[in-house]
């Protein structure tokens, strides 16, 4: 998955190096025409555009009165925030009255955004597999990055969780991500990388054997625990061997220059937008078909003269008009960034079809109301993916429908044959494919 060099003494060093390499590539490729077609598909000759999943969680969410529209069905009246993306009205569905049953846990609820595992925040909680990982399993090896778990720079956790409930550490630098996708190393670097991967595989092979040996000394429950190790080692071996294959294949090229960090590190919406740009490139170049992005709880004060207080502190506005006004500035700019992403995905063409049509895009928040840590009535937008959109699906605000129902509908659309996910009771009523 992560095509990072295996040996880096410190992460900062890696970033600096990749920045330099990034700059070099941009200078070398300024006149190249549009994006080169993706490699994987060429080889495998899939005729239909692949189905992709993109899920975005904005931890602190949106103020409900500004987010949810008036009226339901096709004739809903867009809210203040939805106004911003109203020009894509036919490309998305806004969903109210859904949540994950049993998922509270205040700020820890973001761990369950894509897993729906109940009981977070309680002693002994263990997470379960996330939606994206189920899809990733289906498309394993088809792209250079089977999945891309992304997060804002301050995010420690991605939205991606393994079946054993371990978080997959996020990639937080758009600059690194760009380098991973587009910057080809030298011949020597590639040879070195191959050796790293092969040594890695032989180490893993050895310790896997050691695990079978140890297993014979263990009781039943310990053996189950060691099985997790065994499986993880085998998965990693597979990943390494998959990466070996990709080392030989050229990386796609792009006209897009390497990203630069916003000058002011407090520009967190800009930073997220930068990641959205990279996501667009990743989808367009078919570098990955499963992408998640987590914008965590941020305490940063947005550099905007209308905003004086940190984002998190504003989220606890306590219905204070002044604070809500400031929070609105942030939330509006979050919506603007999402509008730009939608614009990119509707403009990008792939075999005569818009990229958005082959991408199931989920945008939402683990909080329905961050002010009082309420996890019910999550703000949810579902875009693209060939669903029949242009509507507001309004479920009961007091007796929420499980968000997992939507996840099951999404899985079906993505060609994953599963009858249930998390706390689902079926598919989401009112959501149909075109």
């Amino acid at each position, binding site marked *: 998955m992560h095509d990072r060099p295996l040996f880096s003494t410190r992460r900062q060093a890696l970033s600096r190096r990749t920045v330099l390499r990034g700059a070099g590539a941009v200078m070398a490729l300024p006149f190249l025409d549009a994006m080169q077609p993706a490699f994987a598909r060429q080889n495998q000759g899939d005729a239909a555009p692949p189905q992709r999943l993109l899920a975005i969680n904005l931890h602190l969410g949106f103020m409900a009165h500004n987010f949810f529209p008036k009226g339901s069905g096709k004739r809903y009246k867009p809210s203040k925030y939805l106004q911003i993306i109203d020009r894509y009205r036919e490309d998305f569905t806004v969903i109210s009255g859904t949540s994950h049953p049993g998922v509270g846990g205040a700020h820890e609820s973001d761990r369950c955004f894509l897993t729906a595992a109940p009981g977070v925040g309680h002693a002994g909680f263990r997470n379960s597999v996330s939606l994206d990982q189920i899809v990733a399993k289906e498309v394993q090896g088809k792209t250079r990055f089977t999945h891309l778990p992304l997060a804002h720079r301050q995010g420690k956790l991605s939205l991606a969780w393994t079946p054993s409930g371990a978080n997959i550490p996020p990639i937080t630098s758009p600059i690194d991500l760009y380098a991973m996708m587009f910057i080809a190393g030298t011949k020597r670097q590639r040879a070195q990388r191959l050796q790293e991967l092969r040594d890695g595989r032989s180490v893993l092979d050895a310790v896997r054997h050691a695990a079978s*040996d140890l297993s014979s000394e263990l009781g039943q429950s310990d053996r189950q625990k060691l099985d997790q190790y065994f499986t993880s080692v085998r998965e990693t071996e597979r990943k390494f061997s998959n990466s070996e294959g990709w080392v030989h294949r050229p990386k796609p090229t792009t006209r897009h220059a390497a990203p630069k960090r916003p000058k002011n590190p407090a520009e967190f919406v800009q930073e997220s937008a930068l990641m959205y740009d990279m996501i667009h490139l990743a989808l367009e170049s078919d570098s990955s078909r499963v992408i998640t992005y987590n914008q965590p709880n941020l305490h940063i004060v947005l550099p905007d003269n209308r905003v004086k207080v940190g984002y998190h502190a504003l989220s606890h506005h306590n219905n204070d008009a002044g604070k809500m006004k400031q929070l609105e500035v942030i939330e509006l700019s979050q919506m603007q960034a999402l509008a730009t992403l939608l614009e990119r995905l509707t403009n990008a063409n792939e075999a005569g079809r818009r990229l958005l049509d082959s991408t199931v895009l989920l945008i939402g928040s683990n909080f329905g109301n961050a*002010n009082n840590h309420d996890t019910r009535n999550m703000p949810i937008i579902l875009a693209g993916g060939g669903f029949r959109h242009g509507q507001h699906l309004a479920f009961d605000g007091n007796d929420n429908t499980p968000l997992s129902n939507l996840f099951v509908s999404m899985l079906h659309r993505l060609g994953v044959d599963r009858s249930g996910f998390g706390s689902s009771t079926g598919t989401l009523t009112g959501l149909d494919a075109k």
Partner: protein
Amino acid sequence: MKFCITRSVCLTLVLLGGWAVAADTTSKKSPPSAAFPSAVTDFIDFNCVDCHGDDFQKGNFRIDTLGADLTDAKRFKKWVRVYDRVAGNEMPPAKVKPPSAKEKDTFLKAMGNILARADRHHKQVVLRRLTRFEYTQTIQALLSVRMDLSERLPDDRASRTYDTIGDTLTISDAQVEAYYAIANDAVSRFLAQREAPKRLRIRQPALKLVSKGMVYTHKILLPLDDGGVVVFGSKNPRSWLENVKVQTPGTYRIRITAKAYQSDKPVTLKIPTKSGERYFDIPPTGRTVEVTDYLYPGDRIYPQPFGTIPNAHVVIKRLNQPLSAFDGAGLYLGEVEVEGPLETWPTRQYQTLLGDIDLPKATLEDAKRVVDRLLPRAFRRPSSQKDRALIHAGMQRIADAGRPTEDALRWGMAATLCHPRFLYLHEPAHRDGERIDDYAFATRLSYFLWSSPPDERLTTLAESGRLREPNVLRAEVERMLKDAKAEALTLNFADQWLRLNEIDATQPDEKIYPEFDAYLRSSMIQETRLFFEEVLRSNRSVLEFVDSPWLIVNERLAKHYGLVGVTGDAFRKVAIPTDHPRGGLATQASILKLTANGINTSPVPRGLWVLESLLGEHLPPPPDVVAAVEPDVSGAKTIRDQLDAHRHTEACAACHRKIDPPGFALENFNAIGGWDTHYRPLSPQAARKPRRKVDAAGVTADGIKFDGVNEFKLELLKQPELVYHAVAEHLLTYGVGRKMSFSDRAELRELTRQGKANSYSLRELVHQIVRSDIFNEP
């Protein structure tokens, strides 16, 4: 926070209170299971089935079909709950005819035996991997390589539990990949120890060390004739020591002579370090301060003023004047000394593993020898022929491919560090079958007190089978507690026990709490850690966690607490005046801050903290989907008014009559732990109204009235065994790596009984724990 509105467990308690008994109690009901003896089934038939049977399932609970197969964990838990309800006189409810004391006793005894027997089967410590914290410490102990892995391995800590609990420690392919990459990095850094470190020894006036550009081009730092530099701004002061270039990772000593400039009051100097920011109050007469920090190549030493005007140079530029014309307070930096790495070279670890081998000339046999030395240290027990052969074979393949010996060595060491016997704490049984073996015990002991692998001495004692001899064990525990590595018990155990790791979960609102700053925050954490260490080190009673006549504070905290006579940044033990509300843990600013949301306070999280941390209560989780109370910013209602409504709802009251009182007692302490007699306004419109007075009175769950925190503490102190039991349970859970369960209850009670004879000393508790069966069992 959440308030309890519906929850089946609550309901079981509450609804039955109002339930009248049906006349006929004997017919038609089947026994819960044929496998239970009649002492159990008779009691259940007669006392429970009417409300929890075929006809009624009060609180959504039915007992007669529950089943007796206790290998099922969920069912087992339900029976434990049945036992606890009966033992706690909560069931059968007060309104029905109670069973006689004898009937009840017979039932509890029989049921208790059944449950304990069943529990012994499934309470085993689960094979667990090293936590991130332990892994980091272990790499350091093995290879003398310190790494910051916070971005490379997942954080194993979750709130309200311990990261050492094996059941919740998972592993993934991403993590295996990370282990492999980290192993390679660690081996590279270890092998680099063959070269003598490039030591740094600098003694220069600050002007020579700070950035010339910041002094002469940007004119942000003011140069003085004596070679000193004055820094005014506290926001991005750019006063890092640009010309101190660290080349070898290691511990460095940094000494700085500083003075408050243009100020008759002290100016605070801040130095960020890997273990947190350090603050020093620098008087106008000057002072030399010293810190040690672990530095990597490229790290900056960055002394800076704290609490001065943020952007002095901007202000002065606007006035079109030179920086020297600025007359505000600043920080003068004089002579700076930097020395390091302080570690001896060659390191003990390098000597042990590679001391007699010259790597460039080493043969494959040499490399295998190195790995053979590493294996038992990494596995914390002797390695087997099989394990050695597996790794040797891999090394051989590298050599056979014509690659250098060093590649083979790297491969062998990396494989060792990815090996399941390294990553997992394997605890095979002793030949007596009752206890874990001596190596496993040494390992458990070592990770309990040090979060590190056993050292040579512990390993030798394990090898000779003497470690568990009472005198030897006592001496070893004493030695370990005196060792610097015992800091891990504070940083890892105490931080999780007291939930200090959650202190930054919320940021106090600057408008409501203008007095809060990073210095205060850092002092809060320091206070609580030092307090824990003092109780442990000085053989103090765990009751001092509830209330103590002393505190460990610096000037910043003393001011915050309204204590006089403490000056300077140094922490020291001070006596607390009798009527003062501080003393113990719950009134420390750190705890009060982490149990508030940065804006206002609520008795609920604070009450929960007291119940869980100090009294060892295990409250069932609240229903997740119940919305929390939104604070009333208009100022018309206090949180107590809002909570009262909940407390009058029967379903909520069952839990909240326990949770809320300790929180009410702490209500005078605001969201940053300061003492307020009146609530602060949360909004401008509230500021126009008169402030509401804080009411810190309440009634305990047992019906005892109290007014204020001191009266409440007295109530807690009446139950010393509860506090001791709670701390014992927390320590054992952390040390053994599993939750305490039904069959551990008897020994925990016994530990508590013995604790009384030791005046409830924390240090004695540690001795008791390592001797206990619970700590010694697989």
